[in-house]
Structure formats: C-alpha cells, structure tokens
C-alpha cells in the first residue's frame, strides 16, 4: 500500500512539474471521452417523448391501411397500378378489423388523399387524411398551436410545417385548391417528416419526382372529410384509407399484426385478394416508436465513428506528448533505480502518471458528455416532451473509462517497460536517443532543395514520429472527407429534389460540425506538439546545418517540411478512408464521393494548416544563437 502511495505521489509531483503537457493530455483524452459519452447517452432517449405523445393523443395500437390504392403513386405512377378497392370492400375490411378479437376501440376508416402542397415557391408531396371536425377518440392528433380542421382549413404535422416554414394562418394550396393552415399538431400514429415513408411502404411514391414536384418524402396533414374527397377527386380519384385500432393488450400489437400477417401471407404489400380485394396492411405502435428514434439514431451514426476518430487522434496526441516525456524521464529512471527502485516500480511510476491523467480525463469526459447530451437529444418536432436526463449507466461509464485508459496506455506502456529495463548507468548518463539512419531517404534527399533535404532527413531520423504525424492527419482528413461525402450524398439525394429543410440532415450537420471542430482542434494540437518535439530533437542538427551555411529560413522551412511530408501522405490516405467510413457508417448501398475540387482543397488546406502551425515553433526554435546551442551540445 505504501509503495502504491509512493507511486501516486511521484506521479502527482511530475504532473505538477509539467502542467502544460499534462493539461494537453487531459484535453485530448477528455475530448474523446466526452464525445463517446454523448454517443452512448443517446441510447433510448426518444422512448419517453414517444410514450408521452402516444398518451396525450390516445395513440392507436395498430394502424391499418385499407383499400390498397397507393395514394401517392397515383400522382404520376404507372397507369398499370391496379385500381383501389371500392368503398364497400373498405367498409367490410374496417368492420372485420374493428370486430377482430382483442380490438377494444377504433376510429376511421379515414380517406387518405395524395396531394401536392405548394406554399410560395416551395412544393412537396403530402398525405392528407380526411378526418371529422370533432377529434376522434382513438388517435386524435395533439394540437401544439392553432385549432383543429375546418372546411378550407388544414392542420399540418409539426415537422412538416417546420420544414415548410409555415405557421397558423398561412395560405397554402393542396392539389391547386387554396387552404389556410388552421393548426399544427403531432401524432404518435405515423413517423414524422421526412421519414413518413417508413410508415407503410405502399404509401410512398415508387418514383421521384412526381408532377415535377421535388420530393424528399411526403409530409402529413389533416383536412375535413369533404375536403379530402375533393383532393382525391382532383388527384384522379385513387385513394387509400386508414383505420386506428386500440387493443386490449397494447403490448401485443406486434403479435396481433403478425397473426394477421400469418393469416394473410401477403402482408408486406397490399395485393389483390380474390375475395377480399386488397388486404389491409397493419403497423403496430412499436414500429412507430422505433422510427421516431431515427433522428437520434442518425446522430448516433455520426457520433459513434466521430468518437472513435477522436479517440484515435487522442491516442496520437498521447503518443507524441507522453513519448516526449518518456524521453525526458531517462535520468529520472536512472535515479529511481540507483536508490533501489525495481523495474516494476519504475514502470509503475511512469505509467501511473498517464493512468491518473486518463482517469481524470474520463471523469471530465463523462461529466461534459452527460451535461451536453440533452443539447443533442431533443426528440425533434414530431414528438412532445423532453427526453429527461440521459442515462449514464455503469456500463456506459465503464466503456468510457476503458477507452480513456486504453488511449493513455496503448502508446505509453511499451516505452515505460522499455525504460524500466534500461541499465542504471546508461539512464543516469541521460544519453540522447540515437537517431535512426535511413540510407535510401538520405540518398534521395541529396537531390532536393535545402529545405526538403533537411526535412526529409529529419523524417528519416525519427520515422516513428513521422508515422504518428501521418496517422494524425489521416484521421482528421478521414473525418473531413466523411463530412464532405455526407454533404455530397445529401446534395445528390435530397438537395436535388427539394428546397425544404430536412430535420434529420440539419441535426446531422450540427453533429458533424461539432465533431469536425473537435477533430481539427485535436489535430492542430497534435501538429504543434509534434513540431515542438521535432524542433527540440533536431536542435543539434538545426544549428549544425546553420553553422555549415544553411540560412535560418531554410532550416525553419526544413523543420516545417518534416511535418508537411508525412502530412501529405496522411492526407492522401485519409481520402479513401473517409469515403469508406461514410459508406460504412451510413450503411449506404452505394459510395458517395465528394467533388474532386473539394478533395484537392482538403489536401492543400491541410498542408497549408500544418505548415503554418509548425512554422511557429520552427521559427522560435531556430532563433536560438548557433554558438550557444553548439556550446551546450558539446
């Protein structure tokens, strides 16, 4: 116990002796820990808001689509689409479902008309449900503002209204007919815009765009039943119906739907039944609950790889910072061994410092992540209620602490154990680490201008540091290219079709911006630390080059070149990695490649940034008088 206390005291003293380095390490690991915490804290945050929305709307346990006429495909779909069921068949289906075992209440069936909504220059497809002016008992959308439907008055689902930028009192047209927005509402019986297509595939258009209307997915609205019939007529008369069912055992909604599915094997898509017409399509409420979480799931898809990228960068930071400290520890190792410290004790002292910093970083990261999580866990406009404090379980905390410790130890354990094994006399002599010799690079550099000659030889002296620099830049460029790929995909698949703001894309953009800023900040920190380490290590080589006739500018440019050359390699490697990361994270079937211009700007921008960041320590390091350094190094 006393030995452990001594190790901790020695580690604490050393941290206090080099507060800046310790602070930088803390910062790097904290950034990764906080991002990881936020990613993990997003688990299940939409559960509470969905339940609340479901409660206040008396949400349906099962939503049945009847009639089979794919409402939206009629907008411009193939003329071979089978005609919908007649009213009699729909009524028969609705009655059969309402009387099915386990069903306690129902509302509907309601006519669903496909419509083209226009407001100003914006246009979008929409599914408009014809409903009674008196709110139904089962699934009555909850008004967040305004009033319920009236003749000529439409109520819009909140995420759809937000995307359109309309509010109560605004004028819109549906299939060319003028309407005034009477209210804005939320519902637990559909998925919010723009993911309404998840609701039931049959409702979604098979081809885009329709009627020259750009579309990223239909929105949802409610009008009176007569208005809905007029819209359906204007659309060619094809229509679908929706019926809302309450079950005696809501938890068994999935079982109810599955039983129906088993009884009628062609459940997935409405198909023509010889006696019953088109079969109803049933969706249990649990599916809506899951789909309500898509917004946050998308955030997790961004945050999780982002956290891993930050962890990798933090690992590179730790390797540079702690690696440099390990080199400074040589004499300390000798002193500890000289007074009787065993190799295990010495390794313990060297590692304890990083373990303490990692634990402090993990605690800070958990706190920051937990406090920041509510900022990104808003359930979106489609639901009401706040998610409450994100869950910070023992498992989450354990994962974050484990990652922080792994980041700290992965790059320092080996140097620590190596230092513990060095001879006492050798360590006391504090001999500088001999530089590596790379004959090929030395030969190749002879043909280059002086700054590149010097830079390449510095790379050859410390190849591991150059690799770390390249990895750091590769990770950053991977993140940046993944962001560019995201925007390229958004432009290709959303921006081309619609001018409406997409809440999922907007939230993803915010997350990506935060992650990108964190990546760039950590990468800049890495570049400066690596440059400092190089400047210190190359002190003798720099002054000697100057003594032999190299100018200060040439030496400074050479020191910068020693950072830029690995950065160039890292930037080039980062491009395919970024494209691959986005493809993997987005589970996209195809690969989105950012524009060549953007990729060139990314690589050049990275190199300019690295050069600028490293010129500062390079110039400062180069200012020391040659004679003074030569005297000291003698």
């Amino acid at each position, binding site marked *: 116990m006393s030995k452990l206390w001594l190790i901790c005291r020695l580690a604490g003293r050393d941290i206090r002796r080099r507060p800046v380095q310790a602070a930088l390490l803390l910062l790097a690991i904290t950034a990764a820990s906080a991002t990881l915490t936020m990613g993990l804290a997003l688990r299940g945050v939409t559960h509470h808001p969905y339940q609340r929305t479901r409660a206040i709307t008396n949400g349906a346990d099962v939503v049945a689509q009847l009639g089979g006429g794919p409402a939206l495909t009629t907008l411009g779909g193939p003329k071979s689409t089978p005609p919908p069921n007649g009213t009699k068949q729909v009524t028969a289906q609705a009655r059969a479902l309402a009387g099915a075992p386990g069903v306690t209440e129902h509302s509907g069936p309601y006519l669903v008309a496909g419509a083209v909504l226009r407001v100003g220059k914006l246009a979008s497809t929409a599914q408009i449900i014809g409903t009674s002016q008196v709110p139904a008992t089962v699934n009555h959308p909850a008004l967040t503002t305004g009033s319920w439907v009236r003749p000529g008055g439409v109520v819009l689902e909140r995420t759809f209204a937000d995307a359109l930028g309309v509010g109560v009192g605004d004028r819109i047209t549906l299939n060319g007919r003028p309407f005034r927005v009477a209210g804005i509402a939320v519902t637990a019986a559909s998925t919010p815009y723009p993911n309404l297509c998840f609701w039931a595939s049959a409702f979604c258009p098979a081809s885009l765009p329709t009627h020259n209307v750009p579309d990223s997915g239909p929105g949802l609205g409610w009008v009176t039943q007569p208005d809905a019939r007029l819209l359906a007529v204007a659309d060619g008369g094809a229509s679908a119906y929706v019926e809302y069912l309450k079950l005696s055992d809501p938890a068994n909604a999935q079982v109810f739907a599955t039983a129906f599915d088993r009884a009628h094997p062609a459940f997935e898509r409405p198909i023509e039944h010889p006696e019953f017409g088109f079969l109803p399509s049933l969706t249990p409420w649990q599916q809506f609950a899951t789909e309500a979480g898509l917004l946050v799931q998308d955030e997790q898809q961004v945050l999780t790889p982002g956290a891993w990228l930050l962890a990798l960068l933090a690992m590179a930071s730790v390797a540079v910072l702690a690696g440099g400290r390990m080199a400074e520890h040589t004499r300390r190792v000798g002193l500890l061994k000289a007074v009787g410290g065993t190799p295990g004790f010495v390794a313990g002292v060297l590692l304890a410092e990083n373990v303490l910093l990692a634990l402090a970083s993990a605690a800070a990261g958990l706190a920051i992540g937990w406090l920041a999580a509510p900022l990104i866990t808003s359930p979106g406009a489609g639901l009401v209620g706040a998610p409450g404090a994100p869950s910070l379980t023992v498992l989450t905390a354990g994962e974050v602490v484990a990652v922080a410790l792994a980041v700290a130890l992965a790059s320092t354990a080996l140097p620590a154990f190596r230092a513990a094994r060095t001879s006492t006399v050798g360590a006391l002599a504090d001999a500088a680490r*001999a530089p590596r010799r790379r004959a090929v690079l030395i030969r190749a550099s*002879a043909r280059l201008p*002086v700054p590149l000659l010097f830079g390449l030889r510095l790379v050859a002296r410390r190849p591991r540091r150059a690799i770390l620099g390249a990895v750091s830049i590769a990770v950053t460029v991977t993140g940046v290219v993944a962001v560019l790929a995201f925007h390229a995909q958004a432009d290709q698949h959303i921006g081309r079709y619609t001018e409406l703001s997409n809440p999922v894309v907007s939230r993803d953009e915010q997350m990506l911006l935060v992650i990108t800023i964190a990546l760039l900040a950590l990468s800049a920190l890495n570049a400066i630390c690596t440059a400092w380490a190089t400047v210190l290590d190359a002190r*003798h080589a720099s002054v000697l080059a100057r003594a*032999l*006739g*190299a*100018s200060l*500018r040439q030496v400074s440019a050479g020191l910068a070149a020693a950072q830029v050359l690995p950065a160039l390699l890292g930037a080039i490697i980062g491009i395919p990695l970024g494209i691959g990361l986005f493809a993997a994270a987005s589970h996209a079937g195809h690969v989105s490649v950012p524009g060549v211009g953007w990729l060139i700007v990314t690589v050049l921008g990275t190199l300019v940034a690295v050069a600028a960041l490293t010129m500062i320590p390079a110039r400062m390091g180069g200012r020391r008088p040659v004679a003074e350094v030569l005297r000291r*190094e003698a």
Partner: protein
Amino acid sequence: MSQTVNESMLRARGLRKEYGREASLVRAVDGVDLDVPAGETLAVMGPSGCGKSTLLHLLGGLDRPSAGEIWLAGQRIDQMSERGMAALRRDAVGFVFQAFHLMDELTAVENVELPALLAGRSPRAARQRATELLDQVGLADRARHLPSQLSGGQRQRVAVARALANAPLIVLADEPTGNLDSEATLDVLQLFESLHEAGQTLVIVTHDARIAATADRLISMRDGAFVDDTRLTGGTGNKLSALIGLDG
C-alpha cells in the same frame, strides 16, 4: 558595403561581445583588434573562459558582436543580414569544433558532402569532392562508416574534411585536439600543417601550449582581451611529433 582593407584575410577592430546587464555584465571579448594575413596560421591561447571561443564564433559569423567591426577578404561581415551570414559560413568559412559535431546518422562521406549540398552543388559533384577530401585526410577506407564506428582522431579528420568542402577562405578551429589523445592530436596537427603548406588561412583556438607552438603566430588572451601577440619562427619545421611529445 564592400571595402578593400589592406591585404588581411581577416581583420577586426574594436571587437566586443557582452552578456548580461549592469551588475551582471560580462565582457567575453573586450575591444579586440586583429589582422590575419592570407595563408597565416594563427593560434589563440588562453585559459578556459577567457573568451577565445567567443572570439572565434564572432570571426566566423556564428554570433554577432556587441560592438566593433569584422572584415573578411575585404568585406565587412558584422552588419550582414542573416542570409548573408549563412552564405558567408557556407562559402567562406570552415569550422572545426572540439566536439566534432558530426551528424550521427550520416556516414563520413555524407557528413563531408553536406556543406556542398547546402551550397547547392549537384549530388555527384558534392560526393566527388567529399571523397577527394576524405582521401586527403587519410580516411578513404572509412568513407562509409558512421561516426560511432570511428575513433576520436578519425572523427576530427572527418570534421576537418567537412570544413574544407566548399574550399573556404579561412578555417576556424575551436580546440580541435581538446578531445583527442596524443596520437590522434598528431594526426590532426599534421593535417593542419598540410593545409598551412597549401596556403590555407587558419585560426586555431587552444589552451594547449604545444599546439599553439605549431602556429606562425601566437596571441595570448585573458579576460576577453589580447595580452600578447608573438610571431613564432617558421612554424613547426616538421617537428610536430617532438612538439607534442610523441617523438624521442
């Protein structure tokens, strides 16, 4: 700026180098006047800390004086820009240090060719010149050895070859034998003697009287100032071994 000042290769007037301020002011070099004619071997001698190394650094453009003027081959160098000083060190001055200051990761021939590469020579020309110089200092067979694989004397001979890479006007040597045993000292002094015979201007700083005795002229230094300036008769007269106690 270029002015012709008699036939001196190196000339200094009122040269001063100060460190610190007021109570802690130290005059490392204190009002030195110096003329070194072309082809002369000058030894500067004095105890440790008397300012002789600082003087050498000022004369070679490694450091800037607090006051005074320095002229090299008729060109005033103390007011040169940093870039001009770098060019001067590259083309006109060759340095030999007590601690050798070789690049550990470069072989002997790579160390010797480095100043030529910094001067923009082609790799082929730089390598050829380096090989010739290593041959001249008797290390042709050690060209591909790393400094760690060479003895102290051999390392210093590599350093001398490096100093000659760009055919400098003057070679400045700071305690060139300070880290060497007697035999290696003899090797280096013989090398300097051959340079002297070839007409190379040499300034050697040392605290060893036996080394100083090999020069054409000896200046004694104390507390940053010259206290004695003696012309020696005819250099070593091929009696180097006897001078440093290896002979008879």
